[in-house]
């Protein structure tokens, strides 16, 4: 058995719906649906919003 120490590399962002153990999957689905519904009507003008 290895005695290597587990070192945390901090949080990593993974793909939507790929949370470990599907934690908060309903919450994610709800929030993403809400955001997409809003942005479908009112898109973010990314190219002009940066300044």
């Amino acid at each position, binding site marked *: 058995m290895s005695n290597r120490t587990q070192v945390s590399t901090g*949080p990593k962002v*993974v793909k*939507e719906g790929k949370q470990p153990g599907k934690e908060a*999957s309903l*919450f994610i689905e709800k929030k993403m649906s809400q955001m997409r519904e*809003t*942005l479908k009507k*009112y898109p*973010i003008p*990314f190219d002009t919003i940066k300044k």
Partner: protein
Amino acid sequence: MKANIYAVSPHGNGCWKFVSEGRRGRFEVRILFTRDFSEPDHKLYNLGFGVWNPLTREIDDSIEVRNGDMDRILATVGVTALNFLELNPDSFIYAEGSTAARTRKYQMGIAAYLADIPDIFRIKGLLIETKNGQLNPPPTWEPFRVGVNYRAFLLHSNVLYLK
């Protein structure tokens, strides 16, 4: 920022957590940044937070804990979002409350600390005004103004565009 915030710890996969302490006890609150891959050209993240329910293993942003620390919770979420942007300066963070009332609370939280937010960060609000049932003027994403009611918020960093 000079805000009084809770100690936040990473939980992995875009999730952070902290414990709300107040008159009704201790509640674990989780903050989640979820990448929207339907925007492949931009790193757009949805910001969500709420009370962690260990039984359902879900985050509940619909309940009112009434723990007397909402300002501190909002400040904690706000600082966590700024830290996220410092680590991911090419990202955009979208935030919208689960209800109009909650979005108003976010708005008040942003307004309370607006002067303390470093200049490299930008906050936009989605302004939707109606008059006689018609949009007036057309909805716009504009720089956040205190006292204006917004539908949603967008936080991003300007550090990559400064010359």
